């Protein structure tokens, strides 16, 4: 028994250093060399200033931009998480009603119009960078009106940003809201 106590301690310390320091630091070092941008969060710069990460969604309330999904952490970034409301929760139903109403009002839709699910439900991370193509299309008339840009032009831009399933089967079709909005701004300059 005494021998196991001693040997065990050495084994424990050895693997602690190996898998807790050498392994992560080795991976970090190589990652910083080969995939510098990706390993540091796929950050996007505009005029030499960081304005966000390609992977992390942002809060958009300005009617001139495409809006993302409702977020339980208001896209804070240093927090993450969901509402965790269950399917029979009164609160979930009230919140969803509110979200549907908001979207219908913002986009001047009729009171029996159908709204894509992702646009009214909270994401899991609270930082979802994507919306479905349908959820983006619904917003085109509003953006066109606010910006004074013809709908066709915005639609063309949107189609450029629809990502399909990886290898045709992985995940689902989506639009990166931040990237689309950055390009939307440059559309006005063109």
């Amino acid at each position: 028994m005494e021998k196991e106590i001693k040997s065990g301690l050495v084994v424990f310390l050895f693997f602690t250093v190996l898998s807790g320091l050498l392994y992560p630091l080795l991976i970090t070092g190589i990652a910083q060399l080969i995939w510098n941008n990706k390993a540091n969060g796929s950050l996007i710069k505009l005029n030499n200033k960081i304005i966000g990460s390609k992977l992390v969604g942002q809060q958009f309330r300005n009617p001139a931009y495409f809006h993302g999904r409702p977020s339980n952490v208001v896209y804070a970034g240093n927090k993450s998480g969901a509402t965790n409301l269950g399917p029979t929760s009164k609160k979930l139903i009230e919140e969803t009603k509110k979200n549907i109403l908001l979207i219908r009002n913002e986009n001047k839709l009729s009171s029996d119009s159908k709204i894509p699910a992702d646009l009214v439900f909270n994401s899991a991370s609270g930082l979802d960078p994507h919306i479905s193509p349908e959820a983006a299309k619904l917003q085109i008339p509003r953006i066109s009106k606010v910006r004074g840009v013809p709908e066709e032009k915005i639609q063309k831009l949107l189609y450029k940003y629809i990502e399909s399933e990886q290898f045709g089967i992985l995940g689902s079709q989506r639009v990166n809201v931040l990237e689309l909005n950055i390009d939307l701004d440059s559309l006005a300059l063109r």
Partner: protein
Amino acid sequence: MFKEIVFLIIFLIMLLILALPLGGYMAKIFTGQVTFFSRILSPLEKLVYKISGINENTEMTWTTYTFSFLIFTFYGFICLFLLQGLQEFLPFNPQKFGPVRWDTALNTAVSFVTNTNWQSYSGEEIMSYLTQMLGLTVQNFLSAASGIAVAIAFIRGFTRINTNTIGNFWVDLTRSMIYILLPFSIVLAFVFISEGMIQNLRPYSGFQTLEGGNQILPFGPVASQIAIKFLGTNGGGFFNANSSHPFENPTPVTNFLQILAMLLIPVALPFTFGILINKRRQGWAIFSVMLILYLTGFAISVYSESQGNPLLAKLGITNGYMGTNMEGKEVRFGIIQSVLFAQTTTSTSCGGVNSMHDSFLPLTGLVLLFNIAIGEIIFGGVGVGLIGLLINAVLTMFIVGLMIGRSPEFLGKKLEPFEMLMSAVSILSMPICVLLFSGIAISTAVGLSSLNNVGPHGLSEILYAFASPAGNNGSAFAGINANTLFYNFTTSLAMIIGRFTTIIPALAIAGSLAEKKIVPESSASFSTDVPLFVWLLVAVVILVGGLNYFPVLALGPILEHLLMYSGVTF
């Protein structure tokens, strides 16, 4: 639907292509044979033995093996507990996080050394990079390696004759680490990073967003931890949102690889088992049982989830296309691949999540809860999953023995009172633990005050909050506020009971079986590698699980399902 079926078939084929050779590779590793990687890795293995004074040919009795396992787990616990308390004085803490609250630290330490990775904290809000690496990543490795070691020792119980030893814990552990977990993690971490998962040591960065708001991005050595999080079926997230966080699971490809990685070792182990006992068909039979339970659960979940929530459908929501329940799910994964992730993480005892289990529809939640509550035996955690199912097989053979009127045996080993006692301890501890703690929680104000949902869904939240730690799973119906003194204590206890009542009885059975001779098969023996046995074992698993949990499941998810369709809300 076509896309989903193609996806599922490709997924299963890829899984087998990877797991079959791995099963053979592991069989070689643990019998000390030379493999392709030996030349590079064996000097490292020898180095461990040299510095720790271990003779790799020394064998242990089951009691010494158990003692070694326990003392090793204890070292991990102490180290992890202290790291969390002292992190403010240590390097790699750019956010200057103070000490973790003591009950949270205790819960986290128990959680990670037991391979549970139940988390009552938000990683990005309280854990320094050093704690994540030197504390949490290390236990991701070591708890998994211990699990594999114990499974191999358990298998030796069936292969050995007239001996009282079942291998050497340090050797099994070292081999798991050096030949399996470390090299696989390195490869997987690089693939993850190439897809956009982060890996750095920078302080969090704040900036102005495109619209002019503020955002702070958290960073950290994420990929290195996430690789072993899945390979070791640990499941502890670097961030609060776990694998739904874009930095922890950036693309559908990383999502797919995470699902594959959690299944890889648990699926390979039945084949390792088949090779080691020299009956490959037996390995396939065990694998078949797991696959049947896995796919059945998946089919029910997909059906349930694609129905959408009837209470919300009438408000005017249109689907993407596989249903409308996008609450708590990410667009890039979609509904089906969120359900597959959930089914896999609850089957394998991993516990990582890419969508919020609390917000799944009631019948989906029922399946997830059932997967965990039957004791994590559908593939299960690395090592312990195989053990759990084999113990159910022992029970099955006991029942078969009673039915055909012969003294029960399994793989030529006679099953006697000691084996049955240990099997019963192992199988019954889980429901006793889950039901007892849940009972305490629902009858005390302190237990109920943590709930995020009320009504039958509240009961499901509490049930899940004890099933998951007791099954060493670690996922949650995360609405529940588990970071209270009451839940930190009770779930810690559940994790300890869950882990040790799987492993200690298993080692005791192994020790006892190794001493017995192998009765040669005769025409009167009941074959255990045929479809009849497979279906019997499936039936025993469902029956035992059903008998234990049906009453409480009827009051939780089943009642919620019925009320949801009659329009009742809470």
